[in-house]
């Protein structure tokens, strides 16, 4: 053995690294899995939240619809208020747009600041067309998110906002 001190030493080094790796893995695996759990949990399928807006009263002019629902954040449950701009497009389909500006998350409003037939964001003067499409040359890079819609007992229901493909 003493004739080959280097190879014995290397063998010990490899074994030591192996045992050390096993210990580190045994210790850290549960902890890391524990920490990344929110990432792996995935998003819950979006439920539709009821609003007080009657579908029959919707017109081609966007109206502001406020609604609130119960949100469960781990051990904390709270009432969250949300807003949508809702109108019927020329095909008669209901369109519900999220008011959150795709630039930096401010809140847009319909025909704000006298911008005819456009959504206006007051923070950096972002503009969107009625369809939610961002106007080129203004700060936003993407169209406004759109809510999936549903109807129940004549009242509008809104889901979780999704990317808009206009």
């Amino acid at each position, binding site marked *: 053995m003493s004739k080959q001190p280097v190879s014995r030493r290397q063998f010990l080094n490899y074994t030591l690294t192996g045992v050390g790796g096993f210990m580190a893995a045994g*210790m*850290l695996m*549960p*902890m890391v*899995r*524990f*920490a990344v*759990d929110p990432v*792996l949990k995935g998003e819950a399928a979006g439920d539709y939240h009821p609003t007080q807006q009657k579908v029959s009263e919707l017109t081609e002019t966007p109206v502001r619809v406020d609604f609130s629902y119960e949100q469960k954040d*781990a*051990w*904390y449950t709270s009432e969250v208020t949300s807003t949508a701009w809702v109108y019927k497009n020329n095909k008669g389909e209901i369109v519900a747009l999220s008011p959150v500006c795709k630039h930096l998350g401010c809140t847009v409003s319909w025909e704000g600041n006298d911008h005819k037939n456009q959504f206006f964001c007051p923070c950096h003067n972002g503009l969107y067309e009625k369809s939610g499409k961002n106007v080129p040359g203004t700060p936003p890079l993407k169209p406004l998110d759109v809510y999936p819609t549903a109807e129940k007992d004549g009242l509008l229901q809104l889901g979780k906002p999704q990317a808009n493909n206009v």
Partner: protein
Amino acid sequence: MLNKIYDWVDERLDITPLWRDIADHEVPEHVNPAHHFSAFVYCFGGLTFFVTVIQILSGMFLTMYYVPDIKNAWESVYYLQNEVAFGVIVRGMHHWGASLVIVMMFLHTLRVFFQGAYKKPRELNWVVGVLIFFVMLGLGFTGYLLPWDMKALFATKVGIEIAASTPLIGHELKVLLAGHPDIVGAQTLTRFFAIHVFFLPAALLGLMGAHFLMIRKQGISGPL
């Protein structure tokens, strides 16, 4: 590639002697269980350190979910134990580790005591070791309150009453621990959290550093 990076750093900072010194220092053969099986008693110190490392890591991960607030503490512990993947294991490691570290430390203390390894020149290291023991007991006591369940609250009340019976400074000590003259509640929990997570671990790391430095300097005591 790795070698080149190593050489680059070594040229500038001369790091070889730093780690070679640790890697090459001699360990006497009589502490190696492979030579004498009875030498397994020398493992208790290392195992104490190992459990301490696990405690620090699992504690760091637990604070990702835990809230030190009387309204949410229990809820968050319940959540992390029942809803989060591997929550049972991570909390279990921290919970049982607290007991194991006391057991291992107790055995380590007995080994050193019965071998007379604390005798000259190692007196100071023994004193530091006993201080580590106290810090560990303090960590156990303060950690007990954090889940804010029945056991936590009432055991802590008793502990604080014992502190209150200290002669002369009893009342002040009680208020200092509980944060309020009469209530064991919101302020007690945040205090115990701070002590458990920042103050005592800081003391523990300092003392452990001193403990290990002294072992390196003096070497392991010779065989009986």
